[in-house]
């Protein structure tokens, strides 16, 4: 009777428990702490953290691929794969991120951008962080071009875009990249203000901006169509992300498909968020995550945010050299997206100088422009380094 007991003990997870796995479970708990107690992007970090936990449970094999047998035109599953393996297909085939973008589009009001198209320039400038970080990653010598591009995109401050690009160019880095992207998005109120103050004078920070014009329903409806066509023509690889983002927005603005808008921004995006989060976390196995690369990614990611912030602010200052009516450079930092957080950072920093100055509505323009900007940048990187 002893034998089988011994045999069973050998088959438990304790027997296979590695130090790496234990550390990763600790990492998962830290992420859960940040998500639940510190409210760091909980909607993504809770599933991601739990995915990290599940994938590092020894023997469980929740990411194990199935064992197939293919003969005489039939595909037989000898042994089914793990649950997370099947859900993960939605990430690595690039299905989930665009669907999340559809929901984001259904939630996003592009009115402030339409009312002030100049915002688009700021949204473009803030992508500087992506490419400078790319160079940094290359010069670190730790990463090839595909990996460096996936790291740079963290500077886009846009979760789905980062996951979409990384899943195509460097799936083995998906875990650390996604974790860095969402953690830093949550830390925008800590990262951005010092940079914004450093690069602007008190006088600039006190610039007041005139009330935004109203945006007609017709403009709101034409906007997603125009953006889809123009961006897809210039950067075809960006069309999946931009197309779905704009489809969601068309659901919202058309006003005739309320049920589709509702579902795309509630039931559907929630379901996909759960699957995406858990499976992205599940890519962070100990051997993949506990590397010097991960540390480099975390370091590079925060610089990407910083440089993006600076890029936006500096272009705003440059624009003021040419504009009759000056813009407040603080709204430039909102170009990194991280909607709507960095826009609120602009407002709060502005109010520190002049409590009567409401920048939020003006900052929403660069803010949503940043989403488009980073999708375009992702498209460029995909066309340069994609298979």
């Amino acid at each position, binding site marked *: 009777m002893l034998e089988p007991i011994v045999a069973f003990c050998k088959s438990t997870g304790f027997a296979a428990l590695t130090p790496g796995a234990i550390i990763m479970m600790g990492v998962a708990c830290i992420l859960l702490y940040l998500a639940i107690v510190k409210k760091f992007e909980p909607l993504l970090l809770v599933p991601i953290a739990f995915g990290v936990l599940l994938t590092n449970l020894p023997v469980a094999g929740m990411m194990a691929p199935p064992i197939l047998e293919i003969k005489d035109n039939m595909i037989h599953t000898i042994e089914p794969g793990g649950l997370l393996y099947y859900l993960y297909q939605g990430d690595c085939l690039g299905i989930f991120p665009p669907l999340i973008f559809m929901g984001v589009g259904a939630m996003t009001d592009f009115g402030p951008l339409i009312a002030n198209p100049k915002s688009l320039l700021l949204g*473009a400038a803030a992508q500087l962080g992506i490419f400078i970080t*790319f160079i940094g990653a290359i010069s670190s010598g730790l990463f*090839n071009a*595909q990996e460096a591009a996936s790291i740079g995109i963290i500077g886009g401050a846009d979760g789905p875009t980062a996951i979409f690009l990384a899943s195509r160019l460097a799936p083995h880095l998906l875990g650390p990249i996604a974790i860095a992207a969402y953690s830093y998005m949550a830390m925008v109120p800590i990262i951005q203000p010092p940079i914004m103050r450093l690069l602007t004078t008190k006088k600039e920070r006190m610039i007041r901006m005139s009330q935004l014009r109203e945006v007609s329903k017709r403009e709101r409806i034409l*906007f997603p169509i125009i953006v889809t066509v123009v961006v897809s023509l210039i950067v075809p690889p960006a069309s999946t992300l931009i197309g779905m983002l704009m489809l969601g927005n068309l659901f919202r603005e058309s*006003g005739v498909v*309320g*049920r589709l808008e509702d579902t795309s921004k509630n039931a559907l995006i929630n379901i996909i968020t759960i699957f995406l989060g858990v499976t992205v976390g599940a890519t962070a196995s100990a051997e993949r995550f506990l590397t010097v690369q991960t540390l480099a990614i975390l370091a590079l990611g925060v610089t990407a945010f910083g440089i993006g912030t600076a890029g936006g602010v500096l272009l705003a200052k440059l624009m003021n050299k040419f504009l009759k009516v000056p813009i407040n450079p603080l709204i430039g930092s909102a170009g990194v997206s991280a909607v709507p957080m960095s826009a609120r950072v602009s407002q709060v920093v502005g109010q520190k100088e002049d409590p009567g100055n409401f920048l939020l509505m003006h900052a929403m323009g660069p803010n949503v422009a940043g989403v488009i900007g980073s999708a375009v940048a992702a498209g460029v990187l995909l066309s340069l380094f994609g298979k």
Partner: protein
Amino acid sequence: MTITELLAQFANPETIKTLSITHKLLAGLVTTVLGMGITFIALILLQILISSMDRLINRGVAPKDNTQATQASVNKKSDVHEAQDDNELVAVITGVIAMQLKTSVDTIVIKNIAKIEDRSPLWNRAGIIEQMNSRL
């Protein structure tokens, strides 16, 4: 070697190892110039189109003073889509409140996403019935 060849080797995970750090940095620089350039081109083109759309569609719409305009936009929006979350609205309200009442922003957030009333009782019906009334 030409820049195209460089980029090609740079983009290939096998051959990149053979590149010197200078070459890599050069390729990185080219990537940056290309990337930022194209991003700007795309978004500037959008800016031009949207501005012209504005000019084409809204002729002689003068901006009103703050409070009114806000009112208007708020009302107008809430006509357009019923009870949808409206960032502008959040903006104004939050701004004002932040100055005085210090109310939790959550309350506003919650209000905003009250689920929109489903406008079609039978699948692909709502549109139909509306137009029937218009047509018949």
